[in-house]
C-alpha cells in the first residue's frame, strides 16, 4: 500500500510486526518514527520497502547516547508516493555496536553506513566495501562523533 497517511501506516505496521517493533509513532505531519528490535531489523526493513513503499533511501546516521550507554542507528527513508519520511531506528549497546548491513535492501545506504562506521565505530556485518568515506587514510584512530572523543589518537 503506497499512498497511505501517517496514522494508517503506524496502525498497520504496529499490527503486523508488533513483536519486532518497539514503537511506531507519528512525530508530526509527514514524519513517522519506527524503533525496531535488533534481531528483526532486516525483516521489518524488507517489509517497509516492499509492502509500505519506502523505496527511497535518504540517509543514515547514528546518535551517541553515552549517558544511557547506548547508541542509536537511524535510517531515513522516504516514500515517494505518500511523501512520508520515516526514521527507522535501532538501539545498539554502546560497547559493541554492531548490526547487519541494510545495503542488501537499500543499496544506497552504502556510503552512509561507511560514514557511520568511521564516525561512531558501529560495525555493519556484511557490508561489501567498508572503507572510510570522509576521514583521511592516515587517521590514527578515534571515532569523532562519539561524545567522549577527545581528539585523534596521539602519534606513536
Amino acid at each position, binding site marked *: 500500500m503506497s499512498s497511505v497517511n501517517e496514522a494508517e501506516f503506524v496502525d498497520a505496521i504496529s499490527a503486523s510486526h508488533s513483536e519486532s517493533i518497539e514503537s511506531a509513532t507519528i*512525530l*508530526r505531519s509527514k514524519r513517522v518514527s519506527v524503533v525496531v528490535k535488533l534481531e528483526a531489523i532486516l525483516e521489518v526493513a524488507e517489509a517497509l520497502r516492499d509492502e509500505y513503499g519506502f523505496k*527511497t533511501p*535518504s540517509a543514515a546516521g547514528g*546518535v551517541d547516547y553515552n549517558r544511557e550507554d547506548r547508541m542509536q542507528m537511524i535510517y*531515513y527513508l522516504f516514500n515517494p508516493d505518500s511523501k512520508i519520511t520515516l526514521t527507522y531506528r535501532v538501539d545498539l549497546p554502546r560497547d559493541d555496536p554492531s548490526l547487519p548491513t541494510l545495503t542488501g535492501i537499500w543499496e544506497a545506504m552504502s*556510503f552512509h553506513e561507511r560514514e557511520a562506521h568511521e564516525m561512531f565505530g558501529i560495525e555493519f556485518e556484511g557490508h561489501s566495501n567498508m572503507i572510510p568515506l*570522509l576521514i583521511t587514510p592516515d587517521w590514527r584512530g578515534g571515532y*569523532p*562523533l562519539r561524545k567522549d572523543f577527545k581528539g585523534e589518537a596521539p602519534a606513536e
Partner: protein
Amino acid sequence: MSEPTITPDIMRISWGPQHPMSGQTRILLDLDGEKIHKITADLGFTHRGMEKILENRTFLKGIIPIERMAMIDTPNIGIGYVMATEEVLGIEVPERANWIRSLVCEMSRISSHLYAFGLQVEATGFFPAVFLWTTADRVLLLDLLEELTGARFSYNFFLPGGVMKDLPEGFEDRVIEIVHYLRRRFKDYWTAMIENVLFEIRCNDVGILTPENAIRLGACGPVVRGSGQPIDVRRDEPYAAYADLDFDVITEPACDSMARTKVRFREIGESLKMMEQIANEIPGGPIRTRFPLFTRSKPGEAYSRVETARGEMGIHMFTNVGMNPYRVKINSPSLRHMYIFERLCELDRMTMADVPVVVNSLDVWYLDADR
C-alpha cells in the same frame, strides 16, 4: 584510502584533486580504452566535521558554520537549520518573515542554478563563454542580496523566529526589474545553449537514470525530477511561504543529462515567477519574533527538510537540556548523488569524456557531500 585492485588491462586515472575540472574531490576512473569500467569516489577532501561543530555551538551561533557548508546555495541550507531550531524550541515565525525567507531562498536558487548551468556548459568543452555570461547575470542577483543582507555569498540572514532585517525602500521594484531582465536572458540562453546542436549531441542519452533506479538509489531534487518524478519538498511539505506561492514542479521525461540540465534551467523560470509574486504580494507585519540570545532547550527532536538547489536537504536536530543541540545530523543531497554517480557507469555506458558532463548534470557539490 585502500583502493580496490585492478587488472593489468585496466588503466586507472585519478580525476583527482589537481585537475582543472574535478572540483574538490578525487574520483578514480578505471578505464578500459575510453569506456569506464568502474568509478570509485574518494570523498572527504573538504570534510570539516560540521556535525561535530554544531554540537559545540549554541542554537544561534550554529547558523554561521552551517551556512558555510555549501557555499553556493547558502540560504537554503540556513533555512533548514533555522526551521529545525524553531520546531524544537517551539517558536512561531510571522508571515512577512516567511515571505522574505522565500524571496532570499529563490534568489539564491537562481544564482546556484545559473552557476551549475554554466559549469555544465563548460564541461562539454565550450570555452568558458557561457559560464562567464551566467556569472555576469549572477552578479546582479548578488548585488541585490548584498543590498538586503550585507553579504554576497553567505548571508546568515535567517534567525530562529524570523529574518534579520526588513526589505529596504524600493527593493520590490528592483526585484521586478531583475526578474524582467533575467527572463530575456533566459530566452537567450535557451536558444544559444540548450538548442545548440553540439550541446545536445554531448548531453542527450548520456548518463541515463531510469525512474526506477532514480527512486531506488535515492535521487532527489533536479536529478529525480529529470527522470520524470514530481518530487519537490516545496510542494510536498510546504515551508516558508511556498504554500501561498503559485509555481509548477518541473519534470522532464527523458532521463539523461540533458533532461537534468533542462529541469534546472526551467526551474530558474519558476523561481523568477515566485520572485515576482513575492515582490508584488508580500504582506506587511513584523519580521521576527523575539529569540533570546541564550535559549535553553528541552529534550526533543525535529527533522526539517528543505529543497536546496541541489536536492533535498534534511537537518535532524536532537536536543537535550542545554544551550547547544545534542546532535545535528545533516542529510546532504550531493552525497546521495555521488552514490548514483558511482553506479551510473554500470547502469549506462560511459566514456571518459562523459564524466564531466554527468557529474555536472547531477550537480554534485563536494563541500555539500563532505560537510
